């Protein structure tokens, strides 16, 4: 390793399409699908837990236990059923996002003040209409805050999936960096792309939230002064 340059530009240029580009695309796919499936599972779980309170403690315990299982172990656990398809990575990573997303959905649904909920009912909103038109829109900032954490966590965890040969930028780091050449360039490229992807997705989610929730924007200075501090912190 010692006599090699830190960044081998020639190597990057010759490998730009494959394996760098393909690994990146693979990485995007392997992180996007778990986030999507996680959201699709967390919404009904969260809605049920918020509506039917006794359900929430066991649901929360369940998703937390899943989250506590080491990812490597979980990959190998699903391997016999999924073999070396992408599902070997997608299923465990989906399960991990639940530990972040479910509590955020439940908290978000709890954000509608009691008087607003009562007013909605008193004006003739049925339960489903209230859920779709009041509770969920108001929960959006919380759900997106959860998505931001879940996506950063997932993007970084996908790299581990390469240990079971599932591709992604982890593959680049592992195969190109350690096994084949034992030099730093692929490792650095893998790290930089992974971090850049995480930043990009986070930024896109912030934009999505601004677009979906115009009421949380304080265009008027007056509102900034009048409003209480934003309920959710800025998840790093």
């Amino acid at each position, binding site marked *: 390793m010692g006599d090699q340059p830190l960044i081998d530009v020639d190597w990057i240029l010759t490998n730009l399409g494959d394996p760098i580009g393909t690994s990146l695309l693979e990485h995007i796919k392997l992180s996007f699908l778990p986030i999507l499936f996680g959201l699709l599972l967390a919404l009904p779980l969260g809605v049920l837990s918020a509506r039917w309170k006794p359900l929430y403690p066991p649901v929360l315990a369940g998703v937390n236990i899943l989250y506590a299982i080491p990812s490597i172990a979980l990959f190998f656990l699903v391997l016999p059923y999924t073999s070396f398809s992408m599902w070997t990575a997608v299923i465990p990573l989906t399960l991990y996002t639940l530990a972040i997303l479910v509590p955020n959905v439940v908290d978000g649904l709890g954000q509608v003040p009691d008087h*607003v909920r009562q*007013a909605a009912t008193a*004006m*003739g909103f049925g339960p489903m209409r209230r859920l779709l038109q*009041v509770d969920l829109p108001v929960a959006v900032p919380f759900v997106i805050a959860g998505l931001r954490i879940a996506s950063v966590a997932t993007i970084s965890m996908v790299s581990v999936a390469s240990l079971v040969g599932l591709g992604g930028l982890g593959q680049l780091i592992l195969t190109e960096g350690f096994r084949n050449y034992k030099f730093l360039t692929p490792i650095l490229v893998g790290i930089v792309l992974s971090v850049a992807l995480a930043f990009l997705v986070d930024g896109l989610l912030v934009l999505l939230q601004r677009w979906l*929730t*115009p009421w949380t924007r304080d265009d008027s200075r007056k509102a900034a002064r*009048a409003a209480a501090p934003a309920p959710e912190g800025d998840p790093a």
Partner: protein
Amino acid sequence: MITFERVSKRFPDGTVAVASLDLEIPTGRTTVFVGPSGCGKTTSLRMINRMVDPTDGVISIDGADVRGKDPAELRRTIGYVIQQAGLFPHRTIIDNIATVPFLLGWSKAKAHARARELMELVGLLPEQARRYPHQLSGGQQQRVGVARALAADPPVLLMDEPFSAVDPVVRASLQEELLRLQAELHKTIVFVTHDIEEAVKLGDSVAVFRPGGHLAQVDHPERLLAVPADDFVEGFIGYDRGVRRLSFFRADALPLRSDIVLGEEDTVARARETVRAHGEPWVLVVHADRTPKGWLGEPALTAAEPDALLGSLATDPYGHVFRVAEDSLRSALDASVLSPAGRAVGVDAQGQVVGVVAQSELGSAIWSVGGEESDPAERGAVGSDG
């Protein structure tokens, strides 16, 4: 008319919120439910739009049992205003107001046109239409709440302590606004409050609830103040009900005297003559346009030069005045109590002095309405007490 027939509500834990309530709420009038917390007033209100269903008895609107309708559809025909307004934080003011029209399937253009109409009606500015609720003050939010409740022009309006979360000054102006709106709209309003002052001010009739969900008294507010049904009602109304009741009697029947009102151009000698002739120790000096300047007492007149003009002398402040045509006996009494001369100054709509009245004369007027058989029909015309 909304009718409660032997309506009871027992909650699953065994507490009785409402016990065999019989009540008729007349169409087009404001009926206030008032009482301490835990008296069942809010539960009773919520049984009208089926937010709560009674365990026994029947509630009907114009003869139709409310349980004969789908709750959501029933509620779209009944306006509802809640404490803290209950506005949707994620919708603009105009969309908040158009909520029920949207639920009823109106077109967006029609719903928004109606919402703009209502914004004007409740005193909101057109440029506030695209704001979000958190950008408005509490009082403005509650105006939006009232506008939203009126959006589909429901005949019935339920108001659940709508003004108790705003400060007293804003509350007073919202109350005035409601009286003004009701004079125009004639809705059947059921209004819940724990504040007897508010109940007396707003209600055409007031239903006092006692803890345990029993109705203690239903009456015209003036009658309620004059003849409380029992010790509970009397205690709940408070100690100065006699004075508060004077709000229901107009000041225009008071014997005002203008013979002790003098101009700035009159002389001290003339004023002394007036004092002697009428046996009155005070004269009121008015400006050339007959707006009040102040009081002059006998000692000040004795000390002054006889040829001096009254306008050149320092007068005692006249305190606050009452408007003869609009104000109540309570305002006149208050003005006399606060006057250094012990006399209240009555003015017309232009602020010109009509005459003055002494506490002793006020006393006779108060005594004459003191009987229990007074005529509450006089009430309607009396405005607020300033």
